[in-house]
């Protein structure tokens, strides 16, 4: 069986058999010896050349969350069509989304304003705390989709930025 994922703008193709133990797994065509065993609902033990890891996994729609050694890695499971599009993308457009249900307190930029990587662009309030969301690139504001005082859902696009 073949599975395809995107992680940090890289595409990976994994070939995985149906057996649990001593399967050879192929990543991007390269074989790696590995065996694995489900040890709890969402917990796997993976052994590769003696090295042992316990890994938490959770499939959430098209995303797979993988958790080990304290860190969460979000891998996007992609289809054939997306895979080709993904290759062509990286257009330098970024959207600032609300990370949780919140209220827009202050919009710090106007459309066309220049922004620097890490510069605050909008302030939202949630759980009684105000948070400044920061630009993820050097560039300018191309669109503002909300107004101050708006209540927004998790994932709502607040602004669009484009890189220089």
């Amino acid at each position, binding site marked *: 069986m073949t599975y395809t994922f995107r992680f940090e703008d890289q595409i990976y193709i994994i070939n995985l058999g149906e057996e649990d133990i001593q399967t050879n797994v192929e990543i991007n065509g390269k074989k790696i010896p590995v065996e694995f065993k489900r040890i709890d609902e969402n917990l*796997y033990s993976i052994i590769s050349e003696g090295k042992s*890891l316990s890994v938490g996994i959770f499939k959430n729609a098209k995303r797979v969350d993988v958790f080990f050694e304290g860190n969460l890695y979000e891998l996007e499971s992609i289809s054939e069509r997306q895979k080709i599009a993904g290759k062509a993308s990286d257009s330098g457009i970024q959207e600032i989304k609300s990370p949780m249900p919140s209220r827009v307190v202050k919009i710090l930029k106007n459309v066309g304003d220049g922004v620097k990587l890490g510069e605050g662009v909008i302030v939202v309030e949630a759980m009684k705390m105000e948070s400044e969301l920061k630009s993820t690139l050097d560039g300018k504001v191309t669109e503002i989709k909300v107004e101050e005082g708006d209540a927004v859902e998790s994932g709502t696009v607040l602004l669009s930025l484009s890189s220089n």
Partner: protein
Amino acid sequence: MFNKILIANRGEIAVRIIRACNELGIETVAVYSDADRPSLHVALANEAYHIGPSAPGESYLAKEKIIEVAKRSKAEAIHPGFGFLAENEGFADMCEKEGIVFIGPSPESIRLMGDKVTARKIAQDAKVPLVKGSEGAVSDVEANVIAKKIGYPVMIKASAGGGGKGMRLVRNEEDFEGSLRMARSEARSSFGDDSVYLEKYIENPRHIEIQIIGDSHGKILHLFERECSVQRRHQKVIEEAPSSAINSKLRRKMGEVAVRIAKAVSYRGAGTVEFIMDQEGNFYFLEMNTRIQVEHPVTEMITGIDIVRWMIRIAYGEKLTFKQSDIKMNGHAVECRVYAEDPEMNFIPSPGKLVYVRAPSGPGIRDDSSILSGSEITHFYDPMISKLIVWSETRESAIKKMISALREYIVLGVKTNIGFLLRVMNNEEFQKGDIDTGFIDRHPDLLTPPSIDIKPALVAAALAMRNASNEAEIAKEKPVSNWKLLSRKLAVSRNNLL
């Protein structure tokens, strides 16, 4: 001893109090909001009553409803935990009038220490060192003048505040007005009171606090210090006891000062006197918290004294059975607050369903939590998942134990700060004890996971997909699932893509 106690709180502190009651042979009454019906504190209490919608104002802050449940269930006392009604003098007063014991200090002590301006005066009278600042709450106009007089950097603080809310650091005059507005707005929404005061900002201080405990017979003792310097958003995230910056002479001095303040308000129960300490070891009074503190476990671990149990015994009128010289410090304890939050996004809360949780355990590991697989972190409440506390003989081995425990922790469904906590524990400066409240700001590298070998994650992700596919197959009883068909298509064309 009391026969029955109502716990006017939720989450891990409610569970903590229920366990303390069990150990004292006291029946427990839980109250819960809509969102908390599936919470562990409800399941573990002997009785449980619904008190309203999820918004705290309509449930955990609804004084009358809580008093009504106490009367209906014949609870003799109420433990408020922290947050919510814990420092609400009006509630303490109501309890008193209804003949219900409020497990905490007198309404008068709460009032005196609750108003930060009054608290400063009391500290001044008790000859406790204070940071320069405004004499009480300030208007917008005054504020600017005073800020200039005491000199930047300046801290704006909510008069009714606590827990870092309504607090803003201002480094120069240009930013003052905006910060003042934000501080007032946060203060208003958090405490219903937008008055603020000003203080000189001590550059990169340590946050050191002294745990005190007093009975109703006039004895007040201290249980040494906690260091809570590692903070994000002005809120503590890692605490330890003892502090590596404090020697036994300074420890004694700070303890005495803390007891002096507590005596000035005839304090009863558990309380915390907070100080900031500059690079030279000068310490200044910050505030007194008239309640149990989130980070109380580290003190319990090094003293062997169960603070929550003692709060209850003191409220019943018992005398402290030990004196200052009986209290011994043993080993080192570290607490990490495990949050559903995103360190890469300025630690913004990450509410959601905890699909799977596996907490570490074993020698010297204490996990104070109310979470199980399937629990929900809602935006109504603090997004804490657990307090992970470790004890070991030395600071060095306690940190190693914490690293081992954090690596065992698995949480799925929300973002967490576990990786961040691990990176702090592995940081050389932290390990040397070279910490202050500016620590996280100085180390932005701690916020992002290092690049890793992605191979295990890819294998795991493929396993997750295979699982889902197998399960879907079983459910649908079809010989070939859509996943399989899709995968076959992909397999055919994959050579074109690499």
